[in-house]
């Protein structure tokens, strides 16, 4: 933590000659990017903001019923990569994505593919809890409503109760479903956002630092929740807390300045990192 930026760039500079023969462009990810039972398959993904490249040739699989965590110093492109997975980057002017990202074998950047239903399949939970300024009920009901997932009020009620229960919020809010979602505490709001996401029954859930705005108790509740959600969903989570990555994920990917440096079993990454940069980061020498 006490390492200066200067220090860090010297370290990288030293590395680019010693460890990365051929320069940064040809840097290969250490470890196995594939997994046995993949749901999403990303190959050679580049992301550009205008002319600057934020993600450089990243390949990574996200398996069924697993939690993949993405760690790395801030600004290394974790959010950018995550937002590629449900094409949220489409909304940013000048953002360009190349390479291939497949969901169950279907290229999501295919010309004819509509990002709207994609986002129903690949849901997202954001860094700052962002409930709609509507009632708790309406927050969760919104997704099923616009997609026409339910046929009756009773069915919708059922979906809402189920989603809130899975998000571990039901007992706290069942008596005040008509109260504004923005009136909940930060942790409750974030669980409400998770309930809103799972109400449309996605296959993959993307979480971008979902606990960074929460206190430790709320964080613990959400981490527990993520572990339970794994039974039904694939989850990709960006986190700045290595402890969190260690607690919730099965595999961990370490990003650095737009490169995916190392991927592996979470256990292995934290106990026995193969790459110098990964080791420096997890031992707290920088980041």
């Amino acid at each position: 933590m006490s390492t200066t930026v200067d220090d860090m760039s010297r370290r990288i500079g030293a590395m680019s000659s010693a460890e990365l023969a051929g320069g940064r462009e040809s840097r290969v990810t250490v470890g196995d990017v594939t997994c046995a039972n993949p749901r999403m398959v990303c190959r050679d993904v580049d992301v550009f903001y205008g002319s600057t490249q934020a993600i450089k040739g990243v390949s990574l699989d996200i398996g069924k019923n697993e939690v993949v965590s993405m760690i790395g110093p801030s600004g290394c492109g974790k959010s950018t990569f995550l937002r590629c997975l449900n094409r949220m980057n489409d909304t940013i002017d000048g953002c360009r994505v190349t390479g291939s990202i497949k969901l169950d074998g279907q290229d999501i950047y295919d010309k004819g593919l509509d990002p709207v239903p994609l986002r129903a399949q690949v849901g997202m939970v954001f860094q700052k809890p962002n409930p709609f300024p509507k009632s708790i009920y309406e927050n969760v009901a919104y997704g099923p409503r616009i997609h026409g997932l339910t046929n009756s009020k009773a069915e919708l009620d059922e979906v809402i109760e189920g989603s809130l229960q899975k998000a571990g919020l039901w007992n706290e809010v069942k008596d005040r479903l008509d109260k504004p979602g923005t009136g909940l505490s930060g942790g409750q709001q974030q669980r409400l956002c998770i309930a809103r996401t799972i109400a449309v029954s996605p296959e993959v859930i993307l979480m971008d630092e979902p606990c960074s705005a929460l206190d430790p108790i709320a964080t613990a509740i959400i981490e527990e929740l993520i572990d339970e959600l794994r039974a039904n969903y694939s989850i990709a989570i960006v986190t700045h807390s290595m402890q969190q990555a260690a607690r919730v994920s099965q595999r961990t990917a370490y990003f650095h300045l737009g490169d995916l440096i190392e991927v592996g079993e979470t256990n292995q990454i934290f106990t026995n990192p193969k790459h110098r940069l990964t080791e420096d980061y997890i031992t707290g020498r920088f980041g």
Partner: protein
Amino acid sequence: MSNSQAAGAPPKRTIDVVNASLKRRYARERRFRLVGLAAVILGLTFVGLLFADIIAKGHTAFVQTYIQLPVTFEAQTLDPAGTRDPETLAGANYQAVIRDALRSEFPQVTERRATRALASMISVGAPSHLRDMVLANPDLIGTTREVWLLADDDIDMLMKGHIDRNLPESERRVKDQTVAWVEQLESRGRIEKRFNTIFFTTGTSREPELAGIAGALMGSFYTLVLTLLISFPIGVGAALYLEEFAPKNRWTDLIEVNINNLAAVPSIVFGLLGLAVFISIFGVPRSTPLVAALVLSLMTLPTIIIASRAALKSVPPSIREAALGVGASPLQTQMHHVLPLAMPGMLTGTIIGMAQALGETAPLLMIGMIAFIVDIPSGFTSPTTVLPVQIFLWADSPERAFVERTSAAIMVLLAFLILMNLGAVLLRRRFERRW
């Protein structure tokens, strides 16, 4: 200072330095607050003076002088054939009825010139008032009734003290003789000021005592409704498209610059444009609420677009992300989430634009609203005038009685502006209560 330190003086503590400058800082703060307060007081004083002046000049317009006369509805004059045919009754000589009533009230006045002066005390609108009475109730014929008849504007001015009775006769519009008659009527309790319903129920007139605000008011109402219907959807739609959907490129930049420029174009230019395009090319009838609304919409659109875009910009992006994240289409995101949150700001901008439109005069003069139109408009395509133009026209009239009517019309206009702003505040509240 470095010298004194070198000489061994103890180093100054931060708190002493801070304390030393504190007084100066507080003084500056006080000065700033005083200047601000003075500015507010100055502003309020001017507004107060303006209002006081307008009310002082205008409040007398809400009452009007009436003269009570024993009117005999002579069958001989009104319906010689006794058929009670409405056409005959409508065309009868009510002037004569009034002349007779005056003669019975002032039997001593016989000389021709004096009789005519006596008759001129009653408004030229009085005969039609009697006609309406008879048409509504033909049984009046043959009876004598005490009727309050509208007085001429000179008598009204005299009663309201706008014509000084102590001035020498040669410098006064009303002759000594007439003043004496008025004083006679006063002593008999046959002249009094009553609430001026005419002002609120009729269109304008060459005769001040018959001139009302209703025509201009309805004209303004139709014009504003149409302006709102045209400019609000277009303005909000344009803002939404530019802010949320349009690609950011040179063309949208150009459009943006142009919209900002349009907001600064003098309003009379829009009037000329309206004359050249709407009236000359498209043949929209002139002097109508329709053409006025088209011109005023052009004028208020930039205001609405700019305010709406600012309102859209202030909606937190996290709401958009949330909606897109559960799979809402861009349009759904806008309609369900962004627009409702931006609505208060959009409405404020729109009301400001509408208030501008309500008070606008110059461009309307260009499109024929200056015409002298007595009728109260009955729709979007009937010729009319509007409040500010009516104020302009009355302010330009030589009669003393139009001065108070001008001020009264300004009061009505201000009342409407206040109502509209109040409406804006209420609407904001309503929308903002949704958390």
